[in-house]
């Protein structure tokens, strides 16, 4: 049996526990043995991206201590996964190799490792927000800048669901403007970017904006709710867990 350590980002743990549960249920549905190591806190990205590499180092050490013994580490966030896989090299260079090969973003794990083809029903029009770190640091999709064979792992997982429709976006993979502390440090540009993304999803007729990073969705949701717009946000794990409930396919 596949042995998975669930790595739940700190803000998901605190503010979006349902996303954590959806992730857990989804992975169990695919027959994995999932453990949530309770000593975990955060990958350290907010501190690291703020320029405090020194303060981020003990967090990376802790991460290693908590997760090293597992076969796989799976996380419902492209950004936090990329922090471990790509940026821990700055913090724990000698121990990065073991982490790199076994740390996965949830959709990537379902798609690449489990070869999952989720079946179920989700009769909604969704706008797929391609989160930047998942897109360009984990290569979950081909990206509009590069001239490579097009692919999109998140979309291909969702597209098997019955009744699902995708909103057509004029800028398929532009950043939402969250950017961690950027959202407060550069409030004006951050909000302008978020509003631009929302307008694009609105034009595409999205009922729900989904994506693999709750942080981007938190920013968009904050704008949507303040402006009292009818669009909802859902993490892709929530959609998959809801749609595949009671099915259990691999």
């Amino acid at each position: 049996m596949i042995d998975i350590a669930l790595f739940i980002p700190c803000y998901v743990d605190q503010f979006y526990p349902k996303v954590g549960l959806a992730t857990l249920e989804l992975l169990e549905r695919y027959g994995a043995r999932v453990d949530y190591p309770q000593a975990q806190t955060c990958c350290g990205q907010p501190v690291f991206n703020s320029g405090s590499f020194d303060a981020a180092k003990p967090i990376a050490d802790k991460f290693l201590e908590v997760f090293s013994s597992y076969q796989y580490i799976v996380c419902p966030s492209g950004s936090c996964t990329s922090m471990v896989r790509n940026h821990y090299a700055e913090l724990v260079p000698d121990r990065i190799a073991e982490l790199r090969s076994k740390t996965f973003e949830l959709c990537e794990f379902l798609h690449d490792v489990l070869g999952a083809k989720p079946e179920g029903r989700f009769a909604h029009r969704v706008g797929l927000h391609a989160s930047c770190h998942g897109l360009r640091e984990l290569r979950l999709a081909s990206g509009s800048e590069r001239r490579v064979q097009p692919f999109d792992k998140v979309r291909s997982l969702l597209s098997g669901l019955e009744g699902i429709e995708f909103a057509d976006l004029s800028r398929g993979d532009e950043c939402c403007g969250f950017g961690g502390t950027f959202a407060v440090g550069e409030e004006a540009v951050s909000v302008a970017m978020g509003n631009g993304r929302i307008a694009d999803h609105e034009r595409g007729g999205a009922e729900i904006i989904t994506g693999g990073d709750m942080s981007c969705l938190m920013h968009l949701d904050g704008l949507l709710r303040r402006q009292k717009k009818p669009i909802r946000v859902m993490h892709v794990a929530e959609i998959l867990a809801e749609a595949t409930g009671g099915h259990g396919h691999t």
Partner: protein
Amino acid sequence: MDTREGMTTEHPENAAAFVANDARLKWHDESLWFVRQKRDRATSVIPEWETLRALGADIKAHTLSRLADYLEEFEQKATALGAHVHFARDAEEHNRIVHGLLARANVTRVVKSKSMLTEQCGLNHYLEAHGIEVIDTDLGERIVQLRHEPPSHIVMPAIHLKKEEIGDLFHDTMGAASGTSDPKVLTEVARGRLRGNLLAAQAGITGVNFAIAETGGVVVCTNEGNADLGTSIPPLHIACMGIEKVIPRAKDLGVFLRLLARSATGQPVTAYSSHFHGPRPGGELHIVIVDHGRSAILGREHYRRTLQCIRCGACMNTCPVYRRSGGHSYGVTVPGPLGAVLAPHIDPKKHRSLPFASTLCGSCSDVCPVQIDLHQQLLLWRGELGHAELIPLRKRAASQLAGWVLARTWAYEFLGRIARWILPKLPKALLRANDWGRQRELPPAPKESFRELYRRRRGQ
């Protein structure tokens, strides 16, 4: 990389001022996105685009690995062709050399084709202070020159201006009919004026896009042909280039010409790629090669790759922050992601906000025709600024505190519980008085965290 003074580079404040004008913001964003889309279309017809990028990056990396040799080879070949080659340590020396050449030839009227290097060096002001009239012949560059402001983009210097504003400017300065905003008419007005400037010029200054070590020639790319006119009428041609502009062989040029125009404007090739191999008969060609901080970057392993840059501006066009904050918000000649990694090399304190003017979305790295890992460099700069204690104290203290908490499970759990308990109880006014809450609702504050739900579920 900049000698411009008197401008703050507190990017968030400058950007907020730009964002405040919603109409301009949308229009600026869409204009640049239009160019980005043109770039996408122009690159999609090149099946080997990604290979071409890798090849361009490799050639540049190789050149940088033995830059001194290639510069020496270039100097020998160019001199053999009859050009004069000068080396300048910094902006000041560059300006002195150029002025010296002009003064020796009693030049008082100069035409200049677009050159970001001379912008960086503040050449126009320097020459004007010495009684020499400098007319920029690139249309966009001429527009910002007439407005007494710096360019806001390295390829499209006046992209921040609307055609109506240019109409007003040309009415005031060139006698265009009042209320003219037709770009074609405005271009004709400018062209008519420039003709007189070109005919009266005693010297022409150009930038350099590529300097070929093997042949000793320099190549200048323009869409308006202004570099050709500016160098074929007056007898003295001064070409100014950074040390990183050299490429090894003539046959490498094809790689870069294909990458440059497509990435810059979405054109298959720039309208005019002018080759200057030695002076024209009876004329003089001087090539001024400038360091101005570049060799220091070359000496820094992580940042070396920024010298691969061919100045196409694609990183600016794609950058969602640049598109919404305008080039002037960066307070440097080269704005956008590239400028944000170059500027701190010159003055890290002055430009400390620039590496943070990014969401680290990575689009700049993927669009770059020579594969510079721009967003990684922005991140590295953040670490370096943090290490040098150049990040404002409040931000540093917050990071240190967060770092302490996040390394301790009990502290993290405890503070998380307090935050979820207190947030719903805080008065609305307080929540809406901070940088998150002013325009966004806060995330929900559930009673139980995931770990609490998990424990319950597992019966722990």
